[in-house]
């Protein structure tokens, strides 16, 4: 931008010091010039998309090779859908995601309402408790869930996966819904009671309709997260059926297989569609704000 106009600065001063992580600082002046940055961005996007493009592309490869694209074919998708165990895994993943979505949304929304509208001595502790799963490393989550189920003599199955998924999804719902709820003025709820609606009716007829975009967006987010989850599922899964990511893990251990490309592409489509819906649906319901803003909790246009 204005690099050409800059006054002659003392050039001898090297960038001393380091940033927070102790890393060497960025390369010199050329860094800021858009031309260099543009090139950097190009390389970056290449680095980012090439692996995925590869997976998608080769999912349609007619041969097993990962080096030559020998023709367009959907055989790997056929293999995917025709293999019973893979089909079962897909169905299992969808079932888990669906149930998790419903229950986590209900529990998370209720929790959000309680945290915002109730004043209790345990409110702040509950708030911290609710946030903890978000910062708990997945491996800790998985190991502890496994231990719990073993202790209570609950056999590992789809149910245990669902229980674990719900536990770690509630926080997402609460955070998203709470941001929306805080923006909702109390006076609207008071007006409702003033006009003769009981507290329960107010919640049903006034609060929930206003919260709806946030609840929906959170639910779809939970769906996508659950469908994609690996570590938690890995620790809490039974023998069969296993959710798709767990099956993928098993397949990958055997080496590179073309079917995985097909599965990966398919899962990508599902995730993109879910998140896409999460961003678009609130808009379709007549709200002016984009789903992204709802998810991030920002009010207004």
């Amino acid at each position, binding site marked *: 931008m*204005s*690099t050409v106009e*800059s006054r002659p*600065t003392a050039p001898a001063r090297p*960038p001393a010091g380091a*940033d*927070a*992580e102790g*890393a060497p600082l*960025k390369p010199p002046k050329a*860094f*800021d010039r*858009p031309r260099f*940055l543009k090139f950097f*961005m190009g390389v*970056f996007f290449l680095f980012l*998309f090439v*692996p*995925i493009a*590869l*997976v998608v592309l080769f999912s349609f490869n007619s041969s097993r090779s*990962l*080096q030559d694209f020998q023709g367009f074919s959907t055989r790997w998708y056929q293999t995917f859908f025709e293999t019973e165990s893979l089909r079962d895994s897909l169905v299992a993943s969808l079932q888990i995601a669906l149930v998790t979505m419903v229950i986590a949304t209900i529990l*998370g929304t*209720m*929790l959000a309402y309680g*945290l915002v*509208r*109730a004043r*209790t001595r*345990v409110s702040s502790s509950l708030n911290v*408790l*609710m946030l903890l*799963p978000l*910062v708990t*490393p997945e*491996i*800790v989550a998985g*190991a*502890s*869930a496994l*231990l*719990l189920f073993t202790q209570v003599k609950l056999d590992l199955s789809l149910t245990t996966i669902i229980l674990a998924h719900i536990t770690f999804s*509630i926080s997402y719902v609460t955070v998203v819904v709470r941001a929306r709820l805080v923006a909702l003025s109390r006076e609207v709820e008071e007006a409702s009671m003033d006009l003769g609606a009981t*507290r*329960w009716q107010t919640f049903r007829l006034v609060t929930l309709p206003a919260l709806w975009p946030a609840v929906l967006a959170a639910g779809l987010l939970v769906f*996508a997260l659950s469908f*994609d989850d*690996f*570590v938690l599922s890995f*620790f809490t899964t039974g023998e069969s059926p296993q959710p798709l990511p767990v099956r*993928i*893990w098993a397949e*990958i251990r055997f080496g*590179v297989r073309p079917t995985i490309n097909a599965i*990966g592409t398919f*899962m*990508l489509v599902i*995730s993109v569609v879910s*998140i896409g819906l999460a961003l678009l649906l609130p808009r379709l319901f007549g709200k002016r704000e984009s789903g992204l803003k709802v998810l991030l909790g920002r009010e207004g246009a």
Partner: protein
Amino acid sequence: MNENRFASAFLVPGAVWMLLLFVAPLVFILALSFGYTDDLGEAIYSTRLDNYERLVDPAYVPVLLRSVGFALAAVVICLLIGYPVAYYIAIFGGRWKNVLIALVVLPFFVNYLIRTYAWIALLGDDGMVNGVLDTSVRFLNTPYAVIGGLVYGFLAFMILPIYAALDRMDPSLIEAGKDLYGGPWQTFRHVTLPHTMQGVLAGSLLVFLPAVGDFVAASLLGGPEEVMVGNLIQQQFQASDNWPFGAALTVATMAFLLIFMLFYLRSAAREAREATA
């Protein structure tokens, strides 16, 4: 108060669920970490410190150090790549800002396993790169592959907070900085970087936390020399069936990460206080 009672009732289901399915398991893990495995392979609760002593065994210390090292390397690389990307989009993105950020985020909708697998497809002995270049370079089963896998897995978590911080910054500050400091480099050092430090810290934490406990990257992209604590934990609970030791590893990992989290929270709170002062 009537209103309070009504709203408080809403807290109950979620709170009970969290206590039973989140807190209780962690308590179990903590308790088990002081236990041992008997001759029959059963995990017994006890009050022994054996598992913790094992942590400092020369066999395991390298694993712990390596995990931290790989994670740190991943953070640094993510920062070196992520900051410029965030900077470009925030400052030079213009109307394309949202599209660019969406493009950055899009790949991360692909399942983590698949994304890592893609690198196997690319860098494997029979992979694309070796095919195109007609060589047989050993890319995988190296620490670089693992770190690369971690970077590729969590890069978005670094970019987004930094982008948010840059986007929130008043552009006139940069202009003023250019006037004051002359060179763009000085401006960056004295104006831009301090203002986005919270974003940098957040991004670093969001990469560091999952990277330390990760076992997918090391498993798929690394060899026996690249075992991380995540792999170790996974082995204890599945292959080796030594749950008490696994529990101790888990507790140690969690405690280690909690320190960083607290440090970050304290810094974020201080920043919030200064912003309103």
